[in-house]
């Protein structure tokens, strides 16, 4: 059996050899050369069965279909809106992506979503990297009328959400704020204790790898010292997506608490 | 055009080329010197359809403060829009700057000209030598053509006369040669399909993604190197490139000697 040169959860930089074995396959952010699998990006090694991947710790946002994002309307065109989604390319929200029927001969589109307004939208399609279409069909989609916007490195968003949404639920509960998280690293906070939420986000961003993060956030927000129990339902799509990437962090944390069976999730 | 590139690299993987040349075979080289009467020295070099003119102009000026007893040599290049649909008007682009600096490294920094002999009066007056490279037709391998034209122009240049009392330069009487010490010749080795070749034509340049220009002098020493292109080379490939360019450099130097 081949030995792992870099084990699961180890930190890797581009070019690091993870394992020399044909028994494993290179997954996301990895490549095979000869018998070996190497890291392509800076991040954390993840072993899922026989697939080895690297979970990035940094990088700009690249849209994936199904992502919920927060964007700013940049331009109003005759048949839709151009939206800045904090990515290399702007996205397009066509009229067909809006829930209600709009008669363009009677309605000024800028009165629906005007330049500078902020929306919570769903990535509907991504073609050849730069043609990104949005949709407002998902019930969670909406236009923000108030709130405070903060940015976070998109690769840290899974940590903010937490496993099965545990982290974000805890922050929502303890602060009473309404928080919408865009996978593109934009977060909108509505509520009185928004300062506390921002403080929590800062800690999560800078200490995303540290152990006992949940406790630390709980303490900061005046909750009990016990980790927040994961909710049984998965509130949003991004939380489900975040879950897989989150696991790795949880294991790190949970193992130190000695109560986590990592096979139970498979 | 992908199929054309695939065709060329397919040939290259069998060490063959679209114009049937061998791996280390140049296209026909012609060197003409003294082509510009007004210039102190000049040369037109053709390598296949690639055509370059280098001209030497001289004047008297002040030495650089950090080299008070030396002459001044400046080498510049212009990729005139007449030479290729890809060349644009305006200040020299990246490629032209690189070409001039690679040629400069082979000639000036290597010490091919005895700069001390160009000084007329320390700290005050010295000969200034300007080599300007003008590309007339770009059909590949510009650095080798430009380097060859520049050294040919310098080797055949005649210095104007300087009247120290009047402080004037007379371009009517030219007789003395420039104090040249050796003849650096740049040879560019490029890689296609893991094999090394010399003298790329334009289509081959489109396929290649890495090259190494090796400038050698008469005694077989290397005086300048420049890797170009977006890919990398191994140490073994670099050694092979040294051999290729040393051998071809000596051949071209012989050709050059017929003209001086």
């Amino acid at each position, binding site marked *: 059996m081949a030995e792992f040169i870099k084990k699961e959860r180890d930190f890797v930089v*581009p070019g690091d050899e993870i394992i020399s074995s044909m028994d494993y396959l290179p997954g996301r952010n990895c490549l095979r050369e000869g018998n070996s699998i190497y890291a392509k990006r*800076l991040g954390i090694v993840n072993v899922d069965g026989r697939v080895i991947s690297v979970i990035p710790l940094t990088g700009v946002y690249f849209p994936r279909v199904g992502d919920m994002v927060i964007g700013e309307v940049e331009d109003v065109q005759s048949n839709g809106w151009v939206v800045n989604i904090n990515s290399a390319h702007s996205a397009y929200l066509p009229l067909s992506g809006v829930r209600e029927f709009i008669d363009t001969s009677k309605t000024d589109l800028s009165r629906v979503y005007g330049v500078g307004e902020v929306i919570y939208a769903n990535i509907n399609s991504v073609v050849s990297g730069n043609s990104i279409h949005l949709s407002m069909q998902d019930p969670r989609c909406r236009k923000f009328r108030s709130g405070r916007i903060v940015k976070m490195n998109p690769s840290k968003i899974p940590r903010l959400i937490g496993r099965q949404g545990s982290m974000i639920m805890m922050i929502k509960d303890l602060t009473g704020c309404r928080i919408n998280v865009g996978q593109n690293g934009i977060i909108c906070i509505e509520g009185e204790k928004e300062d506390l939420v921002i403080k929590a986000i800062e800690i999560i961003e800078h200490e995303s790898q540290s152990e006992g993060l949940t406790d630390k956030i709980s303490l900061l927000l005046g909750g009990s010292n016990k980790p927040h129990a994961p909710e049984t339902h998965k509130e949003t799509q991004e939380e489900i997506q975040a879950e897989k990437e989150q696991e790795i962090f949880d294991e790190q944390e949970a193992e130190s608490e000695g109560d986590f069976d990592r096979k139970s999730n498979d | 055009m992908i199929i054309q590139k695939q065709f060329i690299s397919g040939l290259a993987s069998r060490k063959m080329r679209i114009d049937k040349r061998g791996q280390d075979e140049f296209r026909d080289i012609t060197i003409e010197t003294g082509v510009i009467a007004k210039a102190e020295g000049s040369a037109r070099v053709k390598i296949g359809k690639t055509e370059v003119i280098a001209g030497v102009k001289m004047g008297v000026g002040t030495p650089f403060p950090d080299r008070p007893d030396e002459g001044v040599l400046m080498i510049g290049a212009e990729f005139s829009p007449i030479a290729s649909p890809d060349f644009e008007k305006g200040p020299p682009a990246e490629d032209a700057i690189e070409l001039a600096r690679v040629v400069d490294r082979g000639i000036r920094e290597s010490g091919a000209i005895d700069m001390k002999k160009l000084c007329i009066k320390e700290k005050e007056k010295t000969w200034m030598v300007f080599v300007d490279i003008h590309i007339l037709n770009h059909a590949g391998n510009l650095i080798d053509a430009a380097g060859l034209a520049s050294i040919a122009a310098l080797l055949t240049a005649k210095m104007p006369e300087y009247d120290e009392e009047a402080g004037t330069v007379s371009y009517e009487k030219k007789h003395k040669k420039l104090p040249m010490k050796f003849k650096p010749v740049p040879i560019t080795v490029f890689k296609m399909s893991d094999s090394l070749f010399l003298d790329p034509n334009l289509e081959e340049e489109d396929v290649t993604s890495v090259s190494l220009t090796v400038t050698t002098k008469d005694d077989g020493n290397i005086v300048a190197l420049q890797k170009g292109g977006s890919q990398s080379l191994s140490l073994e490939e670099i050694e092979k490139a040294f051999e290729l360019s040393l051998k071809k450099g000596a051949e071209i130097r012989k050709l050059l000697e017929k003209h001086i």
Partner: protein
Amino acid sequence: MKEFKREDGRKVDELRPVVIKVGVIEQADGSALVSMGKTTAIAAVYGPRSMHPKHKQVSDRAVLQTFYLMAPFSTNERVRPGPSRRSQEISKVTREALEPAVFLDEFPKTGIDVFIDIIQADAGTRTAGINAASVALADAGIPMRDLVAAVAAGRIEEHFVLDLGGKEEEVTKCDIPVAYMPRKKQITLLQMDGDLSPEETKEVIKTAIKGCEILYEKQKQALREKWVR
């Protein structure tokens, strides 16, 4: 034989003191500072982002742009601001030293911009810049085949000398900057001024490669220091 002494007392195959700091520019997507002796380079990476200027955009890959700049106060004699022929050539060879390492085809129609500012210059600025840029690219989460490490070597008297500094640049018989991908054993930058036989040239390149291997470990260590508690 008399023992050979370098002006700063280093051994022939010893690097100047190296400092690498990652994440020095908060606004950038990735950044790094590299000091080699008195030479200090700062690199910032922005992107992948929308390509400027737009006409340089390429449909099937990202475009890597590099901008090497010397601060006016970085040398004894003030450097005139703005691009010079030298800085434009260095920008080009720096780009070509990094390109072999970067997976540009993963980000079609975007630009990745690398800005390298030399804030203090004492020989080896292009190699310090490449070291900083390579670490900054990794810090920005750009996918790469390997990190790129770079250093110059030369020949003083009969010795092959690593990492020329200060006045050594004036006395060396040659100055050969090399950039290298240690895992791939591939050379991505190779330039030379000087006058050496092919065999000696090869030895100088090998000396530089050994230096690159040491720098490579320091680059990895610096990235770890930022990203692992």
